[in-house]
């Protein structure tokens, strides 16, 4: 089903109009950059409100920008003069004002991974380290900063999400700092440590008696009933755009160039598509000269619907029941799976998956070579990076960026049995010397 002639519209009056008007006064140019929400399937356009699904074909909506207007505004110098956060790229983000939530999110280090590169035979390997994102140590701080800022612009006072980990942490923390009401929905059997990571920010945490499917269904229904900003449901078109900032930062930190290869972990598949979109947008508005980047996707074997489809040469995926230690990637029926496959094909990238044992080994390898302790998703990324390098799909001289999206302190249970124990000694120099074979100095 296609609709090649987009329907133009005028914004209907809403109770938020007065609020939006005051923001327009503040920064007139920025209100013009978002043109509409557009259906990724049929092209039908909608106002930039809290809607996420096309009423005609039920396809997902995404933000459509006026790139010609943005090109006149944006420049490398303007970005360099901006805040040291993801908000330096505000010209390409789906917000209308400057009353930002999550002011310190983003602008994480891009580490030249010489030790890991030497191990893998890659001379120009970089790690984009979102383990240290602010405030909750995962890349979700990017998408949530955008989602909550936009939610407040749209007049929402309550935010919500369904999550088992990083997303809930980030929504809870940002809502606390912004003074917004927050509801977090979790499956009833979630580990205590993960629940604690949310409760500390004092959101309303709702344990649902049921499995993941039950949580999915209930949250979709609540999102339709209540005037709440469900960050990854009715605010999803804006939320997902936050992932582009990983691409923007990478290009800037590489000295205004696109990498030759990237390796991206895949859960819903959205992150991978948005990294591609971000690089292409930089090219479109004249920040980058060219984007030769191959976009590679990584999944865990225990939940690899997208990678499996790619390896089998299919343009569609079969949903699976997740069974992996990489919980943050365990989405069996990924919303953007089809688009991720399309992106990998379009960019001439590849996809692969690794076992749980390979994930653990890769977490340890990254820690022991670069001093970066990644969560299990990071192990997936490094594991697939190893595979692609070994297969010769990434060449030695290519500028390669691996995205590490969360901190290992959040998934310590994954490695607790494989890192050994401390060496225990008596509190004496003699015992220390005996244990380590070092001669006592005189």
């Amino acid at each position, binding site marked *: 089903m296609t609709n090649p002639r987009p329907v133009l519209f005028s914004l209907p009056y809403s109770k938020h109009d007065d609020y939006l008007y005051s923001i327009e006064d503040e920064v007139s140019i920025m209100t013009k950059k978002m043109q509409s929400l557009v259906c990724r399937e049929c092209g039908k356009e909608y106002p930039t409100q809290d809607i996420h699904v096309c009423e005609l074909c039920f396809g997902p909506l995404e933000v459509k920008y006026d790139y010609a207007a943005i090109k006149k505004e944006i420049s490398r110098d303007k970005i360099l003069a901006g805040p040291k956060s993801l908000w330096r790229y505000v010209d390409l983000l789906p917000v209308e004002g400057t009353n930002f939530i999550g002011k310190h999110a983003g602008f994480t280090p891009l580490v030249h991974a010489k030790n890991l590169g030497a191990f893998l035979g890659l001379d120009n390997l970089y790690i984009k380290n979102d383990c240290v994102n602010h405030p909750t140590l995962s890349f979700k701080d990017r998408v949530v900063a955008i989602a909550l800022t936009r939610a407040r612009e749209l007049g929402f006072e309550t935010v919500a999400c369904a*999550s088992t980990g990083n997303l809930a942490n980030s929504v809870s923390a940002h809502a606390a700092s912004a003074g917004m009401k927050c509801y977090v929905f979790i499956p009833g059997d979630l580990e205590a440590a993960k629940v604690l990571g949310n409760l500390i920010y004092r959101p309303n945490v709702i344990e649902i008696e049921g499995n993941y*499917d039950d949580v999915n269904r209930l949250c*979709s229904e609540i999102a339709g009933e209540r005037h709440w900003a*469900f960050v990854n449901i009715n605010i999803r078109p804006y939320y997902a755009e936050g992932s582009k900032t990983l691409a923007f930062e990478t290009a800037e930190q590489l000295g205004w160039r696109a990498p030759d290869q990237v390796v991206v972990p895949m*859960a819903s598949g959205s992150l991978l598509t948005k990294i591609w979109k971000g690089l292409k947008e930089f090219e479109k508005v004249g920040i980058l000269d060219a984007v030769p980047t191959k976009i590679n996707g990584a999944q865990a074997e225990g939940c690899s619907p997208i990678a499996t489809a790619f390896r089998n040469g299919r343009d569609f995926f079969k949903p699976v029941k997740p069974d992996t230690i990489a919980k943050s990637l365990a989405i*069996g029926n*990924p919303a953007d799976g089809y688009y991720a496959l399309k992106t990998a094909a379009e960019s001439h990238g590849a996809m692969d998956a690794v076992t749980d044992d390979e994930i653990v080994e890769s977490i340890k390898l990254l820690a022991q070579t670069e001093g970066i302790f990644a969560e299990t998703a990071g192990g997936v990324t490094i594991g697939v990076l190893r595979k692609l390098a070994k297969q010769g799909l990434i060449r030695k001289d290519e500028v390669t960026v691996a995205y590490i999206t969360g901190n290992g302190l959040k998934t310590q249970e994954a490695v607790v049995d494989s890192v050994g124990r401390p060496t225990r000694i008596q509190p004496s120099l003699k015992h220390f010397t005996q244990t380590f074979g070092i001669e006592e100095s005189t």
Partner: protein
Amino acid sequence: MAKLRFHIRYPEERIPDPILYQIGKEFQVIPSIRRADVRETTGWMDVEFTGETDEIDRAIVGLREKGCIVDPIELNVVE
């Protein structure tokens, strides 16, 4: 009358069956297919059901009893 949207997946062995027609006969719901992709070994549909909420719930149970997997239109939202 409620309108609820679902993503329905068919098991391979049920792809030739007129399941949505049967559901429309067995329950007081009106299905409206908006997008679909049905192939030899896999098939899905994005469908809107119009009817009383309880009746739609019964229709969903009916779909599941026929072997279909029914998700919200947003697919997995637990991240």
